[in-house]
């Protein structure tokens, strides 16, 4: 029971998490030579950037060189990189800007310039759609489709079939997307409880994607993502490969942790299962403990589509 309370309190904190954004209109698309006022907002980390476009289009409407552009022509850029809108904004920030995520030890040696990653400064465009982004449509169907596809994948991993999401009523299916767009945790929990296996029934596999550090000279905006089937429990003996044989008969199962996953999939970056040595895993702007069991991590801290997106940050 206590476990359950803490899982839902973590989930609430995740849904309450907000990022301060400072959004300016691309100077090439502005009629004024001086910079227009920026649009400021504390935006939920689990939300998606295109949901801001109607407000931004209205805010900047008097400055647009091309007055006929539509809000769904809008796209976002950070330091020259067009941002993939199908990722929640919290993940995009952790990927591109969260150089040194909040932790107590980091605070002490903070130089004044380190604080400059907040507010996160983005540029919005309403023309010249970049070739490397999937186009949006006026009705928001492309976004809705991308979200539901992602939900389906998470559901398939958890259950081993896609029947859960397929059997969801049309109303609940669109309700799930609305709940995420409106950051309405209660509605979200009601619908996702239909999809999620009971606490007593473990996931088949745990929906986690791991984003690797971007090379400094990255010429493409292609992200390196690692994904592999991750069962929530692993034989105890696989912790020590020398005892592999004993796992064949009546093996003891241990919960799979963030540390065992990272060590197995990325042994060079994570030589230890317990301690971050060269790199650390970041989720929702926080360094997460290597000892966290992955199923609990996803039950408490997944994004609205059911996935935990871990960003690997190099240390030092």
């Amino acid at each position, binding site marked *: 029971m206590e476990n359950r309370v803490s899982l839902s309190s973590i989930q609430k904190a995740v849904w309450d998490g907000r990022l301060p954004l400072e959004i300016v209109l691309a100077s090439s698309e502005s009629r004024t030579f001086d910079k227009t006022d920026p649009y400021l907002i504390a935006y939920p980390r689990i939300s998606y950037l295109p949901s801001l476009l109607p407000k931004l289009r209205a805010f900047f409407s008097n400055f647009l060189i091309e007055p006929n552009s539509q809000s769904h022509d809008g796209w976002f850029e950070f330091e020259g990189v067009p941002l*993939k809108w*199908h990722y929640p904004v919290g993940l995009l920030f952790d990927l591109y800007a969260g150089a040194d995520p909040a932790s107590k030890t980091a605070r002490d040696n903070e130089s004044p310039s380190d604080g400059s990653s907040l507010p996160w400064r983005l540029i919005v465009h309403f023309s010249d759609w970049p*070739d*490397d*982004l*999937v*186009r949006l449509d006026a009705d928001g*169907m*492309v976004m*809705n*489709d*991308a979200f*539901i*596809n992602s939900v*389906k*994948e998470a559901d*398939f*991993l958890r259950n081993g079939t*896609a029947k859960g999401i*397929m059997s969801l009523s049309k109303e609940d299916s669109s309700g799930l997307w609305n709940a995420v767009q409106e950051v309405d945790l209660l509605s979200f929990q009601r619908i996702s409880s239909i999809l999620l296996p009971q606490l007593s029934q473990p996931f088949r596999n745990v929906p986690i994607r791991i984003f690797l550090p971007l090379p400094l000279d990255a010429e*493409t*905006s*292609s*992200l390196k*993502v690692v*994904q*592999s*089937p991750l069962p929530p429990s692993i034989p105890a003996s696989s912790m020590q490969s020398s005892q592999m044989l004993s796992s064949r008969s009546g093996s003891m199962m241990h919960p799979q942790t963030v540390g065992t996953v990272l060590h197995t999939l990325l042994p060079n970056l994570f030589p230890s299962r317990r301690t971050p040595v060269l790199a650390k895993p970041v989720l929702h702007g926080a360094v997460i403990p290597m000892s966290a069991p992955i199923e609990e991590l996803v039950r408490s801290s997944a994004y609205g589509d059911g996935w935990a997106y871990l960003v690997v940050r190099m240390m030092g």
Partner: protein
Amino acid sequence: MAASCSTFPFLAQSEFEGACQDLADRCTSAQNIGWSIRLLTKPDGTGLRITKYVDAPSPLEVPALEDLETSQDEDPVCRVLAPRDVSTCPNSSPQEALVRTKPQPSLQIDYDILLSPTYQVPTLYFGLRWDNHGPLGLDEVYQYVVPERYRQELKSVGVMGGISMGYHPDSGAPAFFVHPCNTADAMANIADAQSVTPGSYLLIWLGLVGHCVNLHVPRELFA
């Protein structure tokens, strides 16, 4: 006799890679299959790239869809062009070569077959390209790629239909893909778990998914 699939109706990574190699080899020895094929090798596994060209009007002078459909017979835009590199055909005269390579508006379709890390089944990604023209949208996919008899059926599933827009897992560029979420169920209904090998799995799958997006598997590949 090759071994059957160890995780049927799913396909393991190593089985998928063997099947890709096998299909590429068969296509190389087969003639006039209407497309070219090559192995994609990448750090985290192997896949296949199939390229074909179809006749289609230039996007700048697109006639109304009705005209296209009534003026030509079934699969109006699916007629495969002759291989472009005529120099490898010993029987073709220079005149023929001239006629065949006459520039005409043709649509290039690149199909990539990759194993889905989520669904553990092959997934078909594809992109369209017109000469000197950038990537095209979902409307063009239904107009030029999906044969007419599948259009309604495909459009009626899911939020936007059975074809979605997403990002190619390797290049990160926008790409279309056919939903893999029902593939395992479909394969379980069609193929026989005892006898299907990874090679025949991939061919059956390609026959199943390919025809919706104008990628037809020639009979001789099943031999």
